[in-house]
């Protein structure tokens, strides 16, 4: 199943993970295991579709196994990292 994310989805995910917005595009922060996660989210408006190749990288950059894992985190608001 192809997963599609918007800029707004990625911002929601980053915020729920506790990442901070550092500058126009850069978000970063640490998890409780001491890993440091950093990703870049272009601000084209919250409804803008993210390229699948970019979403795949953003998933890895935020510590998800893959895009499916990141999608599961997005739709399950009770899920922790």
């Amino acid at each position, binding site marked *: 199943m192809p997963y599609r994310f918007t800029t707004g989805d990625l911002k929601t995910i980053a915020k729920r993970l506790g990442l901070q917005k550092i500058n126009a595009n850069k978000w970063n922060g640490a998890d409780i*295991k*001491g890993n440091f996660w*950093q990703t*870049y989210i*272009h601000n084209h408006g919250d409804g803008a*579709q993210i*390229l699948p*190749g970019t979403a*795949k*990288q953003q998933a890895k950059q935020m510590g998800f196994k893959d895009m499916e894992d990141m999608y599961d985190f997005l739709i399950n608001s009770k899920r922790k990292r």
Partner: protein
Amino acid sequence: MTFFEEKSISKAKQDFPNIVREAANGFESITTNFKSSNSGNVSIISTDIFEEILDRAFKFNPVVEKDPDGNGYTISIEELLIHGDAPTLFDALKDLAENLMDYAQDYLTRIDFFRQIENRKEHYPYLRRIVKHKDINQVMEVIAECHTDLQQVILKQSQKG
């Protein structure tokens, strides 16, 4: 004869002008803090040799992914957990280079922090290669050094002016 006699800090202080002269000629000096078991050895070597080692051993392997719907390109360097994207391949490479320069500057500024982070500590040699370049075009060339398509796109862009 031993090539790597470890010198104490006080001995290295006394010999420092000589150590620097020898390093410039290709010799390596190793300094040890014999009073502390926590601090590792420190090598003093020529910057040219250090950068030559990095340039040979830490090549970038960018991966290009084209959007199947034709909306753009993503270029990633997976070993550094970083990417760039844009509607054109050239602009995606430029975006990646900007992100990489930003990360390299942050990393080298806070290297004591990043060297303790499990998923970041191995990024140093790659970022040390990047941080010596001030010009984004040079950074793009370093990223593209092992990728023919990216080299072609840089060449085409430079021919356009």
